[in-house]
């Protein structure tokens, strides 16, 4: 904080009362009755994030319902239907912070019929906390959530093996579950930490348990405070890997104020506004505009706070280009080295989130970055069978003719005009898209473009 306080009687020096820290977004998921809401309540409680009146309200309602103490689940179930049914229907966002970090928590539903809301919560998450009941171990819904994490490439998964107090903090069942989880994780290609917890009593949630001397790893909060965010990972990858320094910048809006310029010298200003999707952009970088393929260089990076020499992933800026090339909303600017490529055919993993099924020859809008084009389903290559134990995402894909609500499948799409859709496994932003209903505008699916897997016979991947 570099500014002085603007308040009337600005006598006090601007003491940053609360330091601004880095931001981590995480989601929680689990199946019914595994104590997810209790874990969330425990995290909020132990980080002193529940304000007095909210706590008292929960205490009062718990009492009114004949319960004892404080039902922490009532803190997050914000809809009338949720409280009446005692379940979570939609994602609840909670905000809390510790001296180390600021957190955005997306508390997701456990029921399979609300998986679409879990996908919503997980899509922006830097980490996903999956609850497992130590008495039941990994169940179908756990596998579904791990598959969603793999599909969306959530950078870290924390599996909290809960209710260890009910088995007298015994190590053996935890070890068996941890091994099972590790096996799934390896095959799904996701990074997982497993922590034994009792959300009810607080063991290893924010405070290290005295009952688990056999566990020397971090608590759930330790992990959340230290894991890098997706943007941090992205910046790190760019720094450490040679030659993979490509940046991506979807053009959101052309800033061309003309008569609306704040001062006359900006009358002729022309900048391309957007949020850096990947990498670090520097003034002077050679640029390729997709899908046109035009080439130019970055003449300047502007913000309302002044010009920058570099802008990194996550920053909202405006880019000026050296040449007067044709650039519009929906175009993707990318570094000339390691440039994106526009394609008309894609294969993608699709999480189908609509009531009506997806079938071959269906027409949809494909919303990708800041562009929107028509697409047609040319093939449904398979559907993920969540009941198959283990296996990679692709190995668990079985034949299917359509995708139903909450199915994850592999779909081939033909686009009406080329889009710079890239492999999601290496391009988190430019590999992601949503499918939108052409009639009522509903959001139908989350899609992630996939790399061709050798030997699976898929041939349509990312081709012109």
């Amino acid at each position: 904080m570099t500014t002085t306080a603007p308040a009337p009687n600005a006598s006090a020096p601007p003491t940053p009362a609360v330091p601004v820290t880095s931001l981590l977004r995480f989601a929680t998921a689990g199946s019914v009755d595994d104590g997810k809401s209790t874990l969330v309540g425990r995290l909020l409680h132990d980080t002193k994030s529940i304000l007095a009146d909210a706590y008292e309200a929960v205490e009062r309602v718990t009492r009114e319902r004949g319960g004892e103490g404080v039902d922490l689940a009532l803190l997050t179930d914000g809809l009338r239907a949720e409280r009446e049914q005692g379940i979570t229907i939609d994602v609840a966002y909670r905000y809390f912070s510790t001296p180390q970090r600021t957190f955005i928590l997306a508390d997701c539903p456990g029921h399979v019929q609300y998986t679409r809301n879990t996908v919503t919560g997980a899509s922006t998450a830097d980490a996903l906390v999956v609850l497992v009941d130590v008495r039941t171990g990994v169940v179908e819904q756990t596998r579904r959530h791990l598959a969603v994490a793999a599909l969306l490439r959530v950078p870290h998964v924390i599996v909290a093996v809960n209710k260890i107090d009910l088995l007298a903090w015994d190590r053996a069942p935890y070890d068996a579950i941890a091994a099972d989880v590790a096996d799934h994780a390896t095959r799904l290609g996701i990074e997982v930490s497993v922590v034994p917890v009792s959300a009810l009593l607080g063991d290893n949630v924010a405070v290290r348990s005295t009952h688990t001397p056999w566990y020397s790893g971090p608590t759930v909060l330790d992990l959340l405070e230290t894991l890098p965010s997706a943007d941090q990972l992205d910046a790190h990858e760019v720094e450490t890997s040679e030659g993979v320094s490509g940046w991506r910048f979807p053009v959101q809006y052309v800033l061309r104020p003309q008569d609306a310029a704040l001062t006359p010298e900006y009358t002729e200003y022309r900048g391309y506004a957007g949020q850096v999707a990947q990498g670090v952009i520097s003034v002077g970088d050679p640029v390729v505009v997709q899908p046109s393929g035009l080439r130019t260089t970055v003449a300047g990076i502007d913000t309302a706070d002044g010009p920058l020499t570099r802008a990194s992933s996550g920053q909202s800026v405006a880019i000026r280009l050296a040449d007067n090339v044709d650039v519009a909303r929906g175009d993707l600017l990318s570094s000339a080295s390691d440039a994106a490529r526009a394609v008309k055919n894609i294969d993608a993993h699709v999480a189908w989130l609509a009531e009506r099924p997806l079938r071959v020859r269906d027409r949809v809008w494909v919303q990708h970055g800041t562009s929107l084009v028509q697409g047609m389903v040319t093939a449904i290559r398979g559907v993920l069978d969540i009941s198959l134990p283990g296996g990679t995402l692709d190995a668990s894909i079985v034949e299917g003719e359509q995708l139903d609500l909450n199915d994850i499948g592999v779909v081939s799409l033909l686009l009406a005009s080329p889009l710079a859709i890239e492999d999601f496994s290496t391009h988190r932003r430019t590999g992601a898209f949503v499918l939108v209903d052409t009639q009522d505008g509903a959001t139908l699916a989350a899609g992630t473009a996939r790399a061709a897997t050798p030997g699976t016979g898929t041939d349509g991947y990312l081709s012109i």
Partner: protein
Amino acid sequence: MTATHERTDVTASLNTTSPVTPAPPAGAKRELDALDALEAEGIHILREAVATARKPVILFSGGKDSVAVLHLATKAFWPGRVPIELLHVDTGHNFDEVIAFRDATVERLGLRLRVARVQDYIDDNRLRERPDGTRNALQTVPLLDAIAEGGYDVVFGGARRDEEKARAKERVVSLRDEFGQWDPRNQRPELWNLYNTRHLPGQHVRVFPLSNWTELDVWRYIEREALALPPLYYAHEREVFERDGMLLTPHPAIKRRNTETLATRVVRYRTVGDASCTGAVESPAATTAEVIAEVASTRITERGATRADDRVSEAAMEDRKKEGYF
């Protein structure tokens, strides 16, 4: 003139005491802090919704959250004027200082403000005064009429998910039907930073760029960006009386009971809504820094402390939102 110079102009126009804002160091920071990340997200949301809108509007009351939204808009569309009209639903019970601040801000930024007045609806019997004299719940019809008359299809609001638990459930882009209703059980999935603003004729979307901000974030942003606010937000002496644990200011719409005695106290407002149901809190915090310290250590939620209308029931906000409320 450089872009850095321009920033001073933009912020000074929103600022009464015009502190000198040092230019930030050039060059990208390696890591965005939480406030940088929230600002970048808010700007992204504003640009995305405006780019896909037929006619966007910002709900602007002069309250701190709407001031933050408007400031984000000035940054999102720099170096041009904010290409969005403003709309305010005036209950007729708003604080004079807030209305004056609202009008001064609109004038300084050269924007167009449409005001929908609850009083007009009461005068011609389209709405009836409630027995308790409060008018917050009466805003919905004038709001929806103004949205329809203005032809607005994208409506920005300053609501934050940390305010209230029904709000905690709402998407950044929230579809409203012809009656302005929110259907909490059938919300669209919202993936990554891909915001879907599409809607049928007659429908509109509400868009909340501050969804992920907390009260503390807003205050830190106000400090960092040196934003001016209505003076009510800072400690001042005021005649107040106590009701249900809230400090209310004398107002023609509120009938003061015999037992409710006036006393002069040092107070400030955490929210500046309808004067008939918005309470002050006792506070010595006279500067933004002091307010931040106070908010950081407070143990009561913003709405719990100051909004009578949210104390009605567990689902008060959900019910109002379903009917088309903000």
